[in-house]
């Protein structure tokens, strides 16, 4: 109710902290906690196979679905492999795929957003309409189509998702780029003879960078979910390669038999990392909006 009743200002605005660390710290405890989860996941993705105490790939059917015993904290999966080791090894493809999707979608999305904002007028109208039309393809559908055409695999899926996400990124960033484009300093630079490319690269893009980072963070969460889904469907990463989405699919059979742990453990990893990216991304987004 307080929005409609003008209340007196209580204290002067907090001094802004510059820099990436400052941006992170000002997202508050949830943001920092999320960043830590993401950092852990990244480290595991990088060195996971080295950390794994047992072989994540070699099957030993005699031990299928045995519960947590001995050094096996999470028990064995449907082919008798140590679940924890497979989770650690699976972090790599589970994190790498979304990274590729985000990099692809953001690069092309920023490109279209900036071109659209810079040229404005007819070019903007054409690009915007084109992007609106591209919205027709939900990510997973495109990935399935790609798998049917090119065969199952991580790269086909990642590229399809990048293509499907790109219009969304471009639309969000276009608004911010347009606002930036209309700033007086841009006109001043143009008058001084600076080239379009240099203004865009050296001024416009850096000024919308907080929004870009926030968008990328949120997008990572979505990409992770969609890629894991595609792998779950058997159209992404192929078994016996370790991957969290694949692990859920493989160990599904254990649930009716009373051994839900392997599948649920993989699911929990996905959920934890996705929540971290969502929380951090949302806070960064709010901050980026507040600054404008």
């Amino acid at each position, binding site marked *: *109710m*307080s929005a409609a*009743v*003008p*209340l*007196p*200002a*209580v204290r002067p605005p907090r001094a802004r902290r510059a820099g990436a660390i400052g941006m992170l710290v000002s997202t508050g405890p949830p943001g920092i906690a999320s960043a830590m989860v993401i950092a852990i996941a990244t480290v595991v993705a990088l060195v996971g196979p080295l950390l794994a105490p047992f072989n994540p790939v070699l099957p030993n059917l005699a031990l299928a679905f045995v519960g947590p015993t001995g050094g096996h904290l999470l028990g064995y999966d449907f082919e008798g492999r140590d679940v924890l080791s497979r989770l650690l090894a699976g972090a790599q493809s589970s994190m790498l795929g979304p990274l590729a999707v985000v990099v692809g979608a953001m690069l092309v999305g920023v490109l279209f957003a900036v071109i659209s904002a810079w040229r404005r007028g007819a070019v903007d109208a054409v690009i915007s309409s084109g992007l609106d039309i591209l919205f027709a393809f939900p990510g997973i559908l495109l990935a399935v189509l790609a798998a049917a055409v090119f065969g199952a695999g991580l790269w086909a899926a990642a590229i399809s998702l990048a293509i499907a996400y790109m219009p969304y990124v471009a639309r969000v960033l276009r608004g911010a780029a347009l606002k930036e484009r209309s700033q007086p300093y841009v006109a001043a630079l143009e008058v001084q003879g600076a080239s379009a490319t240099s203004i865009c690269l050296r001024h416009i893009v850096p000024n919308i960078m907080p929004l870009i980072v926030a968008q990328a963070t949120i997008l990572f969460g979505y990409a992770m979910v969609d890629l894991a889904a595609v792998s779950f469907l058997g159209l992404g990463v192929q078994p016996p390669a370790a991957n969290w989405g694949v692990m859920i699919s493989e160990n599904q059979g254990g649930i009716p038999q009373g051994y839900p742990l392997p599948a649920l453990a993989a699911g929990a990893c996905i959920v934890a990392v996705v929540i971290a990216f969502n929380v951090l991304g949302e806070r960064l987004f709010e901050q980026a909006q507040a600054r404008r």
Partner: protein
Amino acid sequence: MSSGSAGGSVSAVTALSADRAGSGAPLLDVDALTVHLQVEGVERAVLSDVSLTVSPGEALGLVGESGSGKSMTARAIDRLLPRGARVSGQIRFDGADVQALSSAGLRDYRNKVAMIFQDPRAHVNPVRRIGDFMTEALRTNLGVAPGEATQRAADMLAQVGIEDGRRRLRQYPHELSGGMLQRVMIAAALLTEPRLLLADEPTTALDVTTQAEVMAILDDLRRDLGLAMIFITHDLELAAAICDRTAVMYAGQIVEVRESALMHDDPLHPYSAALAAARPDIAQTAHRLAAIPGRPLSAFEAPEDECAFAPRCPHAADVCRAARPELISLAGGLSRCARAVELRGALRTQPAGAG
């Protein structure tokens, strides 16, 4: 004179009864109103010992800078305070305690007291037609039939200077200009035949030429219909022009109440004098515009134990810093200046930059 006691209501009542005695039973009687709000988790005072009266058919101007509490006073009177507000003191309308009203009584009160807000575009529902907006209260509270309500609305639109009322009633708010929308708001407020109008800076959000038009319409209609009005503004001259009496607020407190005609030449409080002097006079040359040094205080920043205006006051003395001054009755008005009696006559506005 004032004993400097913390409980202000006794002296204020004595002062006000002198004020009331002259004008007959007041329509609205606000007595020692104090409001505390929860601001970011801490309770803060936004209004402090506010007392004023409005007689039937009388226009009272309520003047102050941002944060002085003038809007908050109107909201308190109209019971529009946010959740968690703590109110002490009394508000009486036609003898009845406003705070104690509920459901039917409250609805009846809301029909009799109409508020006009500052930014018409924000205060009118954008997804409903003008006709719906104007007739909603009539149909819901007073049970008027839709056809009849629409007719009354169209007639009222004509009174505020909007031709072709029927067509306008079918339009949406975004199709009307700001000035027109404010006239619609005024018309809507008058439809329930209120007895008191609370106008919260009705023209501030409009451009200058539209301001004058809307002001004229409001003033004329008010007088024609014999409505009482509390007119809130930051412009002392504007209040003086259309209101019989003017009240000045500072830091959530009433600091002066005076007949408008006397306010300019014989103010009773240094702040009112300073406000009047700060306005540039087109007939004089000034080398420097007079401004009040420092910045206006909000109610919760005002100290409990001294005059809130003392830090900025050119006439401040030790007595001003000894205790919070009471409202005293003086020359037919009220003043919250500890030195009001001795400064009487010496506060008259000097031409800016003279000497």
